[in-house]
Structures are given as structure tokens and as C-alpha cells.
């Protein structure tokens, strides 16, 4: 390689590394900021906003956990997540199978209709939904709020699973039919196992969404013992408005579970996407 080409190559590498490093710094800075701030006292924060704390001041975590019924909120979020994601997964897979591999009149229309529901912003539906939920006695219940989440998760889930099912080669299905499998058998023994990567991805994406969701949880789980983690955080903001380190400590506590799950489960997540789950 000539010197000129070598320099050009060097610059190219510099640009690549440089941009990616810059992007990473920008991505991580808020997390870093949250982390270091939660260990500072209020006055230390005012003087030194972005450096490392001089010592690990732990009282903020006391403040954050103390009035917050943290563990109950955590449990509520967890229950809602497991319930909504689990049930919506089953429903979506069943429906996706019908869309992907069965024939019936109105299939395309129905599919498009379901998909178009993906764009409905929850805020639009809250008041009418609240009215019907009260009629059915489902406010402040896990079942009630889960049903809402399930409804909201279904369009995207059906979309993803249908696309994925369509990519499973016909031959495999036909081979199993030769062996006398019914539709249900094909579904259970062939489609589902092969769909593991897509299922994992869908579960993670959906779980994340439910865990992080605020508005529905705010309106439908108002009883103090039923509030979710996100609702607790939002309330914390109005209480500790001037004690920024304490707020940060609370945010940190709420975020740590997500980060841990991500760091450990990252392989599955990436593998799911890499497995061609989305064409």
C-alpha cells in the first residue's frame, strides 16, 4: 500500500472509531450522570455537576426508598409485565398462525385492520376505556390493566409473528401434514419451536414496553397498593423536586433491574434479532 493510501486508510479508521466513540459517549452520558449524582449530597451536586463524587454518600438511597414502598411497586410492575406479555404472546401466536398459514375470506382486510391499530396512541383511549373498565369492575386490578396492555401489544405482536411464520418453509409444514398432523399439531410441534428467536425478541420488546409504560398505569392503577414503579418515579419527581441527587437515586434504583437483565440477557436479544426475526 502506498503512503497516501495508508494515510487515507488511517483517516478512515479514525473517522469510524471516532464517530462510534462519540456516539457511545452521548449514549452513556445520561446514565453516568444519573449514577454519579445519586452519590452526591445536594450541595456537592450544585458545585460539581459532572465529576465523580468525592465520597459515596448513600443517604439519597434511603430517601428514595423510604417513602416509596419500592418493593410493592416493583412487584406490581413485574406482575403486570408477566401477565400481559405472556397472554398476549399466546393470543398473538394463535392469530398469526391463522394469518400466515390458513385461508379464509377477509384475511387480508382483517390483517390490515389489526395492524393499523398499531398507530393508536393510548392517550386517545384512556377516558372511554376508563368508563368501560369501571362498568366491568376492572379498575385497580391486575386483570383489568393487563387486558389493556394485551390489547395494545397485540397489533405489533401479530405483525411480527405473522411475518415470521410466513418465513417458515412450506416443505417442513407439508412434511408434517404427510405424517398426519392437524393444524394444531403443526402449530404446536413445528411452528412454535422454530419460532424461538422471534418469540424471545417479541417477549423482550413487549416486556420492556409494559415495564416502562406510564400513562395507563397512572390512570388504571391508582390505588396506592397497586401503583407501578414508573408511577412511583413520576410521583417522586413532584416530591423531591429540589433534591436532585435524591431524585437521581430513585431513578437509578428503578433502572438497575432493566440494565442487569439487559447485560445478562443481551445474547438472547441480539440472537433473536440476528436470527432473521424481522425480514
Amino acid at each position: 500500500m502506498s503512503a497516501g493510501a495508508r494515510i487515507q486508510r488511517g483517516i478512515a479508521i479514525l473517522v469510524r472509531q471516532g464517530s462510534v466513540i462519540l456516539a457511545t459517549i452521548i449514549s452513556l452520558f445520561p446514565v453516568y450522570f444519573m449514577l454519579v449524582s445519586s452519590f452526591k449530597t445536594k450541595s456537592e451536586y450544585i458545585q460539581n455537576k459532572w465529576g465523580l463524587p468525592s465520597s459515596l454518600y448513600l443517604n439519597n438511597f434511603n430517601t428514595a426508598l423510604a417513602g416509596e414502598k419500592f418493593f410493592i411497586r416493583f412487584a406490581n410492575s413485574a406482575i403486570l409485565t408477566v401477565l400481559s406479555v405472556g397472554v398476549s404472546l399466546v393470543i398473538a401466536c394463535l392469530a398469526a398462525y391463522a394469518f400466515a398459514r390458513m385461508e379464509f375470506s377477509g384475511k387480508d382486510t382483517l390483517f390490515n385492520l389489526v395492524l393499523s391499530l398499531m398507530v393508536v396512541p393510548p392517550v386517545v383511549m384512556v377516558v372511554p376505556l376508563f368508563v368501560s373498565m369501571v362498568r366491568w369492575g376492572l379498575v385497580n386490578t391486575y386483570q383489568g390493566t393487563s387486558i389493556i396492555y394485551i390489547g395494545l401489544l397485540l397489533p405489533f405482536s401479530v405483525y411480527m409473528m405473522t411475518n415470521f411464520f410466513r418465513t417458515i418453509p412450506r416443505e417442513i409444514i407439508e412434511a408434517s401434514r404427510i405424517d398426519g398432523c392437524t393444524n394444531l399439531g403443526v402449530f404446536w410441534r413445528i411452528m412454535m419451536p422454530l419460532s424461538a428467536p422471534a418469540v424471545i425478541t417479541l417477549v423482550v420488546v413487549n416486556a420492556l414496553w409494559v415495564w416502562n409504560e406510564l400513562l395507563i398505569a397512572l390512570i388504571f392503577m391508582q390505588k396506592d397498593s397497586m401503583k407501578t414503579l414508573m408511577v412511583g418515579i413520576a410521583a417522586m419527581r413532584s416530591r423531591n423536586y429540589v433534591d436532585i441527587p435524591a431524585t437521581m437515586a430513585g431513578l437509578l434504583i428503578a433502572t438497575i433491574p432493566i440494565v442487569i437483565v439487559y447485560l445478562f440477557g443481551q445474547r438472547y436479544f441480539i440472537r433473536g434479532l440476528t436470527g432473521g426475526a424481522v425480514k
Partner: protein
Amino acid sequence: MPSRTSKSGLNNPDNSLTIRKGGGLPLPYRPRKKFWRKLEPWLYLAPMLIAILFVFGYPLVSLIILSFQRRLSGVNTFVGLTNYKALFKDDVFLQAVKNNLMLVITVPIMVLIALILAVFLFERIRGWQLYRTTLFLPYLLPITVVGLIFSYIFQLSGVLNEFLNLIGLNFLALDWLGSTRYALPTLMFVIIWKEVGFGVVLFLARLMSVEEELFDAAKIDGANWWQLQWNITVPQLATVIEFFTVVSVITMLSWVFNYVFVMTGGGPGNSTMVTELFVYLMGFRYNQMNIASAVSVLLLLVTGFFIFLELRLRAGTSAAEVS
């Protein structure tokens, strides 16, 4: 009549039609089976239909009905298009629409950034796996948390400005969220910050399933970096790019409520008002369910249109693909 115990239609010369599309039983049917076959898909669809009807059915219908009504003398009265007409005279609503459109315009930028980063990572620069992990992290964090942190970072006396002052860029130390000119762009930055990671991982995953030979062949032919991207990368990623674009456009129209609510509340002076927030304020603060419903209907029509377009396009291309 072919018996059920015989082997499949593949090898049975008695069957004029061998395998039906979708893999059903060979002809002819007994009527009972025909009925079952018609019913079966609906059984699989039933749970979904029930859930969707419950969650979307009543609210959507109620919204449509309410949008054509007003409460006069305590009674819900039909008023035709009055609410819609009122909307188009409402400056705050128009500002909201404008802001949503501005947000949509940032989507190409977001796609481009995700694409470039994905390509860099794909080229296996050192530590690319680590970068993939860190670039994706923002996507996982709750908007509430992210919004709150950024609102502290962007304060006039916050970290960012302190830093800028430190390195001598004082003129850049602006009132990011507190000035009508910069609040919306700052908001855009935060949304992009959070959503880009998804695109990066998506593109990267797809890239990694493209055959190496394609790239090698092009390199041998002497293609430079730009040509490589333009002729190979982008076409290969076409469907994923399209998918990410559509998802992002829908996000900018319908899923930014949390960002605005936590970071600016629509201010300063309505400069960051968006349609979702407008619906929320109308419905929950001003007791104006009818106008809120009208806005909701409009929002749904617009976003529905986009997704309808996308599905049409998709149907076109996938029909061509599947053969």
C-alpha cells in the same frame, strides 16, 4: 373415494389436486369437514378478536360518536362538523400539528445515523460488540427516567452548559428547554438519542446475514466505500430500512406523549405542543371531551393512512417476493 388412511395426495394418482395452498386435506371433502375448515381459522383468531374488541372497540366508537357531539344544556347533542371546524381555528392545535410534522422530518436523519453507525460496526472496528451493547442501552431505558435526567442536564445552569462554558463555547450555552426556539430541537435530540439504538441493532443484524461474497466481489471490482454502501448495503437493507422508517414515523406522530409531558409540558409557550398532549389537556384539564375526541379521530385517520400505505407497498413487494 380416497380413504383417509391412504398416503397423502402427493403420491396418490387419484387426486387431481395434490397439495392445496396452505396445506389442507385433499379433495373431495365431506361437508362436515368443509364447515370445520371454514371455522377453524376463526377459532385461532377468536382470542385476538375478543381482546381487540374489548380494548379498542368501544373506545374507538365512542370517540367517533363524541367527536360529532357537544354538550348543550347538559345533553349530548349532534353538532356535525362543528368540533372539527373549531379545531382548524385553534392556534394551539395547529401548532401541535406543525410540531408533529417537524418531528417526522427528523426521521430520515435518524435512519441515516443508525445506518452509518451500523455500517461502522459491521466493518468490525475494534470493540464493535461493546459499542453495540452501549448504543442500544438508551432504547431500553424508560422515557420517564430519560426525560427527567435530560431536563436537568439541559437546564440553563445545568451540566451541558457548564461544560460548554468550561471549554470556551459560551455562546452555545443556550436555554435549551426554556427557549421557544430550541425547545423542540432539544426534544428531537432526546427522541433520536433514545430510538436510534433500535435502528442500529436492526440494521446490524440484517447486515450480518448478508453473504460476505457480495461485499468481497464488489471490493475486488474496485468499489470505494460510498459505492459499496450505495450499491450493496442499502439495497440489501431495503426492507429493514423501510420497516424502521415506518415505525419511527408512527412514533413521531403517536408515541411522543411521554417525552413532552415529562420534559416540557408543551412549553415554553406551546412551542413543544404535540397532538397527543393536546388531546390529554382537552380531555383531562379543560373538560372538553368532544374536541379531544375530534383530534383523536383526526390523528387516527392520518396515522392509519400512513400505515395503510405501508401495508399496500409491502403487499406489493412481498407478493413479488413470494413465488
